[in-house]
């Protein structure tokens, strides 16, 4: 039974007041690329749709004192075309350029992508690898949640019914990379994705690292075992072999229409190697096990 209302929120304050009033009934709509499909499929019913597409304060990419802040309503297009992100957060820039197709990217937002919490959400691995924080508001209060605590499961996050994502924020890191394996070049839902970010000392030793994977577990995940295999080390053949072995402990893939669990288990270590080498500024094929 379809039974909807629609109210457009002109600004953040109005959106928070509406969320507070409607509570369980509220359903935020940004770019609507997930929302319209779910409404048509009857997965969403009996809600007050709160339109937030027009809230200017939710969109835009800001850089100040080493920190990048991206408003929740920023479209994937804006991210894919940002010269700033290309330089300072290549992992996220690349993910936006591999996302769906240019037309879908004109509507899809980064806030909608993480709130929807698909295990295959393409912006999730780069945000995890960049150790982003999600800035969340509800009427009268604000909180920050580390990206690694944000996802709970398939389409499940820590967001309460009356909360709105305002932005994601992370430290710039040019030494970050993303790789997506899909079934075709455009509009392909990810089969496996990986992202990494590293910091190295002058000798090339890895002093800080974060690696994340998509589509290999019920939610996008950090690969803590893989990180442990490389932290404090210089990349060489042995370290890379250890890294690839460790990935198996970080993932719990399933068979689905796009690929088998076996395939994902084979591919994940290879693309983790690739993004880590790329983050470190070395070509994935030199000095690596195949």
């Amino acid at each position: 039974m379809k039974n909807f209302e629609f109210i457009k929120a002109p600004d953040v304050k109005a959106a928070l007041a509406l969320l507070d009033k409607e509570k369980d009934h509220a359903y935020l709509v940004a770019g609507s690329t997930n929302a319209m499909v779910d409404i048509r499929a009857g997965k969403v019913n009996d809600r007050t749709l709160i339109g937030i597409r027009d809230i200017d304060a939710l969109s835009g990419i800001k850089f100040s004192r080493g920190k990048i802040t991206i408003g929740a309503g920023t479209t994937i297009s804006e991210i894919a075309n940002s010269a700033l992100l290309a330089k300072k957060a290549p992992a996220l820039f690349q993910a936006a350029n591999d996302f769906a197709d240019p037309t879908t990217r004109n509507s899809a937002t980064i806030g909608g992508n993480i709130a929807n919490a698909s295990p295959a959400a393409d912006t999730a691995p780069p945000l995890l690898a960049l150790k982003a924080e999600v800035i969340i508001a509800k009427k009268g209060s604000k909180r920050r949640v580390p990206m690694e605590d944000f996802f709970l499961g398939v389409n499940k996050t820590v967001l309460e019914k009356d909360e709105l994502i305002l932005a994601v924020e992370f430290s710039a890191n040019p030494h970050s990379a993303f790789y997506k394996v899909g079934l075709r070049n455009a509009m392909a839902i990810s089969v496996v994705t990986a992202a990494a970010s590293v910091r190295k000392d002058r000798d090339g030793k890895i002093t800080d690292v974060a690696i994340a994977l998509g589509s290999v577990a019920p939610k996008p995940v950090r690969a803590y075992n893989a990180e442990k295999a490389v932290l404090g080390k210089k990349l060489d053949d042995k370290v890379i072999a250890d890294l690839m072995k460790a990935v198996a402990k970080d993932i719990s893939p399933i068979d689905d229409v796009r690929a088998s669990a076996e395939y994902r288990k084979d591919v994940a270590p290879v693309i983790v190697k690739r993004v880590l080498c790329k983050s470190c500024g070395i070509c994935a094929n030199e000095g690596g096990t195949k």
Partner: protein
Amino acid sequence: MSNLLPLTLKVNGEEKTFLASPHASLLRVLRDNYYWDVKCGCEEGDCGTCTVLLDGKAVKSCITLAHNCAGHEVWTDKGLGYNDEITRMIQDAFVECGSIQCGFCTPGMIVAAKHYIDHGGIADRKEIRKAISGNLCRCTGYNKIVDAIYKVAVELGREVR
């Protein structure tokens, strides 16, 4: 049944007020009001034949919540063809290059091409393929569609050397 709410949009240059369900897609509102040049294919965001310009950017109207567009400007392939020189060039090129077979994908392809050219698109076959990667065509094999967009880019002096 859902209640109908008034929705004011500027469509093809004219301000219009429609009645639409709170959860209606922009595609449904347009087709219910006789903008039949906007085609309905998959209604899931996959095929691109429903593509229109919203505030100058190509979007798939089937995955666009209509009421979220209130007060904004929508152009369809047909409206653009009567009013916009670039679109007219693209439409002519589609005819000249034989880029149309059944024609079902054409309105969406032309709007996607218009977005590409408007945003500085160059005469580069790889870039053009990317630009129309959200639009499916079951007939032409894409080559002649790419030819047409390439031709327009060349006519506009956007060759790459």
